[in-house]
C-alpha cells in the first residue's frame, strides 16, 4: 500500500516535468507560432494581434498555468492552429484508434510469442527452437515500415485478402496489427525462452518434479509464473514501443491514430496540436511504466517487503 502511494506520487512528479517539456517545445523549435498561424504575407501588426490573442505575449509561467489548468480542469487542450478544431476531442478519437491498434499488436505478440518461447525453452536446441529463434532474429531486425510494405504487397496487392489502407472494420486491422506486433512477438518469444531457461535450472523446479507435479503444471505453473516477471516488463516496454511505433505504421496504412495526427501536425506546424499529442504520448509512457512496476510487484511477492 505504501508502495502504491509512493509510485503514484513519483508518477505525478514525472508527469509534471514531462508537461513542462512538452509545453516549452513550442518555444524551442524554430519558427514563430504566431507567424505560422497568421500565414505568409500578413503584416507585423496582425501577427502581433494574433500573438496577444493566443496569450503568447504573457510570461511563460502564466502561459503554462493557463494551458495545464485548462487541460486538468476542463480537459481542454486548446484549438488547432490550422482549423480551430478543439484538440481534446480530436485526440481522444485518434488516440482510441491507436490504442485499439496497439492492443491488437501486443495481444498478437503475446499469444504467439509466449507459447513459442516456452516450447523453445523446453525443447532447447530442437528444430522448433532453432526455427523460432531464427525467425525472431529476423523479426527483430526488420524495420516496421518494411514489414508493412511487404505485408501490403503480399496480402493486399497480390492476394487481395486484406485492405491495404483505411480503418473501420476488423479486416482493416489485420495487416497493421501484424506489422506492428511482429517485432514485439520476436522480442517476447526470445525473452520468454531465456527467462524460462533460467527458471528451469532453479532448485524449486526440481522440487516440483520431486513432489510429482504433472509436467504441464511444472512448466505452466511453477516455471512460467516465475519466468513471467521479466516477461511482463518486456511486454510493458514493448507496448510502449507499439504506441510510439504506431506513428510509422499508422502513416503507412493511412490509419487515423494519434501518431498520424502528430506527424500531420508537425508537417503543418500546428503547434498547439503538437503540444497536445506530445503530452498525451509521453504521459501515456509514464503511466504505462508505473503500471508495469505495479504488475511486477504483483508477480514477485519478494518485492513487497522492500
Amino acid at each position: 500500500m505504501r508502495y502504491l502511494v509512493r509510485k503514484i506520487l513519483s508518477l505525478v512528479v514525472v508527469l509534471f516535468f514531462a508537461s513542462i517539456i512538452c509545453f516549452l517545445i513550442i518555444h524551442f523549435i524554430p519558427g514563430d507560432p504566431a507567424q505560422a498561424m497568421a500565414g505568409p504575407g500578413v503584416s507585423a501588426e496582425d501577427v502581433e494581434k494574433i500573438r496577444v490573442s493566443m496569450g503568447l505575449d504573457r510570461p511563460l509561467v502564466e502561459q503554462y498555468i493557463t494551458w495545464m489548468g485548462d487541460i486538468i480542469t476542463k480537459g481542454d487542450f486548446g484549438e488547432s492552429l490550422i482549423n480551430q478544431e478543439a484538440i481534446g476531442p480530436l485526440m481522444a478519437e485518434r488516440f482510441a484508434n491507436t490504442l485499439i491498434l496497439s492492443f491488437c499488436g501486443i495481444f498478437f505478440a503475446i499469444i504467439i510469442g509466449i507459447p513459442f518461447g516456452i516450447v523453445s525453452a523446453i525443447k532447447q536446441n530442437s528444430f522448433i527452437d532453432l526455427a523460432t529463434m531464427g525467425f525472431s532474429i529476423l523479426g527483430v531486425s526488420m524495420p516496421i515500415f518494411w514489414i508493412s510494405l511487404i505485408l501490403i504487397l503480399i496480402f493486399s496487392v497480390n492476394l487481395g485478402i486484406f485492405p491495404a489502407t483505411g480503418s473501420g472494420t476488423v479486416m482493416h486491422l489485420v495487416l497493421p496489427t501484424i506489422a506492428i506486433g511482429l517485432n514485439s512477438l520476436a522480442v517476447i518469444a526470445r525473452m520468454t525462452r531465456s527467462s524460462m531457461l533460467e527458471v528451469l535450472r532453479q532448485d524449486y523446479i526440481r522440487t516440483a518434479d520431486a513432489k510429482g507435479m504433472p509436467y504441464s503444471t511444472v512448466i505452466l505453473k511453477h516455471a512460467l509464473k516465475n519466468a513471467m516477471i521479466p516477461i511482463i516488463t518486456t511486454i510493458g516496454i514493448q507496448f510502449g514501443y507499439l504506441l510510439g511505433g504506431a506513428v510509422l505504421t499508422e502513416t503507412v496504412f493511412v490509419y487515423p491514430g494519434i501518431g498520424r495526427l502528430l506527424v500531420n501536425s508537425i508537417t503543418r506546424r500546428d503547434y498547439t496540436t503538437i503540444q497536445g499529442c506530445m503530452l498525451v504520448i509521453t504521459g501515456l509512457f509514464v503511466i504505462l511504466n508505473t503500471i508495469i512496476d505495479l504488475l511486477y510487484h504483483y508477480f514477485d511477492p519478494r518485492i513487497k517487503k522492500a
Partner: protein
Amino acid sequence: MEDKNIVLEVEHLKTSFFYGKKEGKAVDDISFKVKKGEILGIVGESGSGKSVTAMSVMKLLGNTKGRVVGGSINFMGRDLLAVSDKEMRQIRGKHIAMVFQEPMTSLNPVLTVGEQIAETIVVHEKVSKKEALARAKELLDTVQIPLAEKRLGEYPHELSGGMRQRVMIAMGLCCNPDLIIADEPTTALDVTIQMQILELFKKLREQYELSIILITHDMGVIAEMTDRVMVMYAGCMAEYGDTATILKNPRHPYTKALMKAIPRLDEKQEYLDAIPGVIPSIFNLPEGCRFHPRCRLATERCRKERPDAFTVDGRTVCCFKAFEEVKESL
C-alpha cells in the same frame, strides 16, 4: 521381491554424466536396501556421489547430462528404471518424497507455503483444495511450525531457513510416503536448528513407520540417527552394514578416517582434516581402488585392481587390506 519388509532395493547402480565423448562415473556399482521403518544413512565427503545416488532413485536426472547406465532400482516390487515419466510422477511425492539440501532455494518463491503443500495433496489424492489446505495446516503442526494457519498464507521469503526446511519436510510427508530421501537436510542450517530437524525425523519415523534415507557427510549424524549405513567414496561403496557394528569396529580405512573426523557439534570445523588430499573428479578417477591416492595403507595391488566386496560379521567392505586383516584373524 521376497521380503515384504524391503521398501527399496538398489543393485549395482551405475550413473554417469556425459560431456561430449567423456563419461564421468559419478556412481559406479552401488547396492543397498532400505527396510520398512528403518533409517539408512549414506555418508561420504562432498562429491562422493550421494546426491547423484538419490537423484537416480528419484529419476530426477532428466535436466542434467547424467543418466543411469546400469543396475536396477526396485521400489516396493516395481522396477523404477522401467516405469514411464508419467508413472514416475505418480510415485514421486506420493510414495517417495525428497527433502533437499538447499532449503533457501527449494521452495517456489512466487507461491504461498499453503499452496505448495496443498497442490501436492490435490495432485496425488484428488481431494478438494479446501480439504488439502486443511491438511496442510495439520502438517505444519506436525513439523512443529508455530502459527501454522498464518504461515499457510506466507511466501517462502518470509520464513527462516529452518522453517523452510520444515515446510519441505511437511511437503514430503503430505501423502504419507513409504520412503523419504533426505539429502543433507540440515547441512545448510545452524547447529541448534540442525538438532531440532533431526529430532523431528526421528519422531516422524516412529509415528509413521517411515523409511528414511538420510544423506550426510557427518559421521556424528550417522551415529545419532541411523540403523544402517553405507559409506561412499568417489562413486563406490566403501563399507555398508549395521551402523552399530561399523561404528564399533570400522574395517575400511576411509570409514576409519571419517570417524576420526567427526566434527564436534559445538564448533564449525572443516571435516576430514584427518585425510590428506581431495576427492577425485569423476572425469579423472584413479585406477584400482579409488581411495588409493589418499590411503596410507595402499599397496601396488590397490593401485591396479579394484577391490571386490566381501562380507564379514554382517557388514560389507571393499578393501584389500581389510580382507587380509580378516583372513589373518581367522
